[in-house]
């Protein structure tokens, strides 16, 4: 413990000396965040400096081994770093799918050469990665994917189409699932491949959502050549990696989603929007009651998330319970946005204009509808809970 406290003081001193003031301001939008990559243009000198300093310490990927660009921190030491950064409001210096997904996958399944080549570049923010999983015909049933990679002597030839590839149009590279054995049954013929988005035959098309523009793209592969060395893990064993990352992804969920409701109490919002009655209460009793009911659910959900986290930190596994959190958290968020629409009334219907910051209410409400689809639909989550938590028999 004394060791950790000493570490905390070191971190605190270093951050005080090295984190530029501008990097202690909250991130205002997705564009204000440093995604990194070959084509990245820093919007300020502070951004550049902050990334450079943190990368030099290995603190852009604190738990990765030092030889791969990380700092080799223990989970406890990493927690201290996170706390100290949060204390001064320090921004994450850089992040993208390379940190969240590919890094963990390579650390567990990659070859030594792959780790040495890709991890340091990610940690320094030099390569921006995106993820190619879903396909138009393979949504919830991911394993039915059809994008084909034919193995040749020293390379694969990839043909097919991915969807929901966030920022595919801005990423340098993609890790993706491809079918390498068309005759094998579903999961059995899938491999995990890395490819460069600048390769010939790769093209992307942005997807417009019902809420407006989005980071999502469709990505098309037309005879794209991928070197043999970009296969991660064994040929036809990619499903193992995918499953590992899916669980990894869900375990990160349970926090409040970003957006204008984050950290806000709908009751306070309604008091401001509707006005107070003689007792100082929201002057619409049925709305007040519904808000209170929903905020009780939100409070209960947070209590459960805290419990699950505490158990996880105590070394008790989370397992399929993460599906419970993914399910309820996203459904709850949808309900909160629905009720926000009631609270804000006509103002929430506006689609443009300064008054509503370009229709922020309506657009975020619409966007929230996707929460229970992306990252595994609510239906899939309930199937997982039924099968793996309640252990009910398969239908």
């Amino acid at each position, binding site marked *: 413990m004394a060791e950790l406290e000493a570490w905390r003081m070191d971190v605190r001193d270093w951050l005080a000396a090295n984190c530029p003031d501008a990097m202690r301001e909250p991130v205002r939008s997705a564009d204000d965040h440093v995604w990194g990559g070959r084509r990245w243009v820093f919007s300020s000198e502070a951004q550049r400096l902050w990334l450079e300093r943190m990368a030099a310490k290995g603190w852009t990927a604190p738990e990765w081994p030092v030889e791969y660009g990380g700092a080799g921190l223990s989970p406890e030491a990493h927690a201290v770093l996170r706390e100290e950064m949060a204390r001064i409001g320090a921004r994450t210096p850089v992040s993208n799918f390379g940190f969240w997904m590919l890094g963990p996958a390579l650390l567990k399944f990659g070859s030594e050469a792959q780790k040495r080549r890709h991890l340091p570049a990610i940690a320094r923010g030099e390569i921006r990665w995106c993820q190619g999983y879903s396909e138009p015909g393979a949504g919830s049933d991911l394993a039915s994917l059809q994008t084909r990679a034919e193995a040749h002597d020293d390379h694969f030839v990839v043909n097919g189409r991915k969807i929901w590839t966030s920022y595919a149009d801005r990423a340098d590279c993609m890790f993706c699932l491809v079918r390498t054995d068309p005759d094998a049954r579903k999961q059995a013929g899938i491999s995990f491949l890395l490819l460069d988005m600048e390769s010939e035959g790769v093209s992307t098309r942005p997807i417009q959502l*019902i809420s407006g523009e989005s980071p999502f793209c469709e990505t098309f592969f037309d005879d794209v050549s991928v070197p043999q060395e970009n296969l991660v893990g064994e040929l036809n064993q990619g499903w193992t990696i995918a499953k590992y990352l899916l669980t990894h992804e869900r375990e990160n969920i349970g926090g409040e989603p970003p957006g204008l409701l984050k950290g806000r109490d709908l009751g306070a919002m309604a008091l401001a929007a509707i006005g107070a009655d003689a007792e100082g209460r929201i002057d619409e009793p049925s709305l007040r009651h519904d808000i209170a009911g929903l905020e009780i659910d939100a409070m209960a959900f947070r209590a459960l998330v805290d419990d699950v986290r505490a158990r996880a930190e105590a070394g008790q596994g989370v397992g399929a319970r993460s599906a419970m959190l993914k399910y309820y958290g996203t459904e709850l968020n949808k309900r909160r946005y629905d009720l926000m629409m009631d609270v804000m009334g006509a103002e929430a219907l506006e689609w443009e204009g300064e008054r509503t910051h370009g229709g922020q209410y309506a657009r975020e409400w619409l966007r929230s509808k*996707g929460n229970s689809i992306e990252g595994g639909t609510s239906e899939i989550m309930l199937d997982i809970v039924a099968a793996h938590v309640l252990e009910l028999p398969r239908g």
Partner: protein
Amino acid sequence: MLLNDDQSMLADLAARLFTDKADPDTVRAIRDGRIDSGYDQTLWQAMGEAGLTGILVPEAHGGMDFGLVGAGLVAREAGRRLAMTPYVSSAVLAATALGAADDDALRARWLPALADARAIATLACDEGRHHRPHDPATRAVAGGDGGWHLQGEKTLVSDAAEADLLLVSADDGDGDGDGPCLFAVEAGAAGLTIESTPLLDSRSCARITLDRTPAQPLGAGRPALDASLRAGRAVLAAELVGIAREVFARTLGYLHERRQFGRAIGSFQALQHRAAHLSVEIEMAEALAFRALEACDRDEPGADAMVPAAKAKAAAVARVAAAEGVQMHGGMGMTDEFDIGLFMKRARAAGHTLGGDRYCTDAFARARGY
């Protein structure tokens, strides 16, 4: 309800007309400026030729005088195809208010023009975030010359930019406690400013300001406003039923067609039960909407409870149908390329217009005496 022969013919006519001439993609075309208009002018003209713009106008003024059941049958079909027209504003709200007006000259001047789509009119009765039609801050002041002027601001005025005539609710300050009256304001009147406020459903909508704007009283007091609101709510309920039906039909189609895990997703029992439940809700919402329209036509005493009930129910069901539609379509439902989101947006806007669920539920309770 069981339709009589006239009603069946009208329903068929409307179904054919909207199937041929209306297309949900028009919402995008207007939103993205590919059509430079606040509404679908071709469709509106076709509706005029078919007499639908005059469906509530008395025959003496060149209308069909079909009654609200007829207006609802048209609205349901319009809802199914997301028809972008000033139908509710002009053919329902304004036509009903003018029909109740106590001024023959006003009626004779405007009703025939509305009936054959030569003119568009609308109602301006909202002011804040929430629908509270009986307590406007807008004031009507009698001038020395016997004329009136309006002073105030109105929000959420549908089709204002396209309207030749605006019917504006205002407090006439006579202190008789009978609530606000309606006043007719012509497009281009002095002191009238129209600021366009695009809504999520991409329909024409505006905030208007009235600064010593000359206006003519409809002369029928609050009953004209209430008749207009009642008709508008009942017809919106029918439109919402059309939205719910269409979005559900499309979802059902997707459940049949989309395969995951080697089977049609419509064969999964959890989805089946949700779809089955929703189908009952839609049937109920439709039955109640048309029952309410009929009650208005017959001037039954229960109509004042039934209309807000029908609006609240239809709005809630349309929202659920759209939400289930998006969820069951998966990621596709979230894309602007698919139409489901357009139905979701319109359901939300129409549900709020002339009073959201809470307003309507409260109005129902009041009408029931509790």
